[in-house]
């Protein structure tokens, strides 16, 4: 086998470093939005209002029942077309809506992970002992104060291990954004490999970069988990 590691390293790695910045930016923004979306959806699903409950339950099922890849396609290619058509039917014939690839990617990841994270929060909130709520009420807090000051902080703390897991998954799932032309790691590698035919080297380096990104995070999560255990 005639492998040219030096060449691959020297030429691919600088490009991948730029890709890492894209991955981190996308992951951090998507994850923060997903956590907020997840929390809000979880709370909406825990209200007594049947319509609100049903609406968000259906939404979560739709998102969880379709692949992330299809969702990304849909947001990037289909949603602009739909909006275009709506605008045209309203008499605006020059409409030509397009999302930036990164924005579409962030939207897709946020919605998809938001749906899963909402389930994490929902079960975490439900698992908090009713006595916590009652002791808060008995002190004179209102229901919403109890929810935000007592229940949600505890539910959030209990969710940290699972959230950490999702964060690591999301870093890896940013590779799907290659298909909507976000120049993240996979797309850069693909381009490089197809130009140089250093396929083995390129994709091995790519896998290594993903490992380097996710391993420290998993370790950090383990540490956090240990810290949280002390409180129980």
């Amino acid at each position: 086998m005639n492998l040219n590691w030096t060449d691959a390293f020297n030429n691919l790695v600088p490009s991948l470093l730029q890709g890492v910045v894209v991955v981190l930016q996308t992951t951090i923004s998507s994850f923060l939005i997903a956590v907020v979306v997840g929390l809000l959806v979880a709370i909406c699903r825990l209200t007594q209002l049947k319509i609100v409950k049903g609406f968000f339950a259906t939404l979560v099922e739709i998102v969880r029942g379709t692949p992330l890849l299809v969702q990304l396609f849909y947001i990037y290619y289909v949603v602009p077309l739909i909006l275009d058509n709506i605008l045209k039917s309203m008499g605006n014939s020059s409409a030509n809506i397009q999302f930036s690839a990164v924005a579409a990617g962030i939207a897709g990841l946020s919605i998809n992970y938001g749906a899963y994270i909402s389930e994490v929060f929902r079960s975490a909130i439900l698992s908090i002992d009713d006595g916590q709520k009652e002791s808060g009420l008995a002190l004179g807090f209102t229901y919403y104060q109890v929810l935000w000051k007592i229940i949600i902080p505890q539910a959030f703390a209990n969710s940290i291990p699972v959230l950490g897991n999702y964060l690591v998954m999301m870093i890896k799932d940013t590779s799907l954004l290659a298909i909507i032309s976000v120049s993240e790691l996979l797309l850069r590698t693909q381009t490089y490999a197809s130009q140089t035919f250093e396929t083995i080297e390129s994709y091995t380096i790519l896998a290594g970069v993903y490992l380097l990104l996710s391993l420290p995070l998993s370790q950090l999560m383990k540490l956090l988990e240990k810290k949280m255990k002390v409180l129980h």
Partner: protein
Amino acid sequence: MEEIMMSVKSISKSYGSNLVLKDVSMDIKKGEVVCIIGPSGSGKSTFLRCLNLLEIPTAGDIIFQDQSILNGKIKVNKYRQNVGMVFQGYYLFNLKKVIDNITMAPRSLNKKKKELAEKEACELLDKVGLLEKKDVYPSSLSGGQKQRVAIARALAMDPELLLFDEPTSALDPELVGEVLKVIKKLANDGMTMIVVTHEMGFARDVADRVIFMEGGYIVEQGTPKEIFENPQNLRTQEFLARIL
């Protein structure tokens, strides 16, 4: 004539067709200590929970300081600030240090300054004998210590009335004493309290009045002497014979 703090007027509570509290009435005077005893399932806890509206009675009325708390005109959360409650399961906030458990409600509800709230919390912790635990997390406390912190937490809102829902039932026998001692101290300080308990010795020692409940009714009430030494009702006699 002593001032009546709370007047319960024939309240009932049912879950669907299951009537768990039947036409219960009682008055509690300022400074009085009332112990409620009775077999499990007799409605004692439900009754207690009705008093701070954790359960809403399905009939009857409760008058607190000359005002109905059931006519919808009062703010329930404001009312509850006057009526502390201590639960069987402690329910401390486990993400917060002991001191923050105690200062949380006064700081956030009464807008007390941190320094003042902490100073008062330290006094309360001293009172329940746990000042040295102020900076630990609840998970490192024993059951008895947790319950004493829970009492301090309830006291921090400076309530008029304190409700205890079987405060020692979840404790190991050797830890029961330390909690009862704290409650006794409060009684001596003149705190108005209603205590649902299975500790007959405690009820006999501390209560001004003992109420025996069974099947959702108040079967009999009187001074500890009357109830424990000379119960009139057959069911009270049977209950006491079973457990004493």
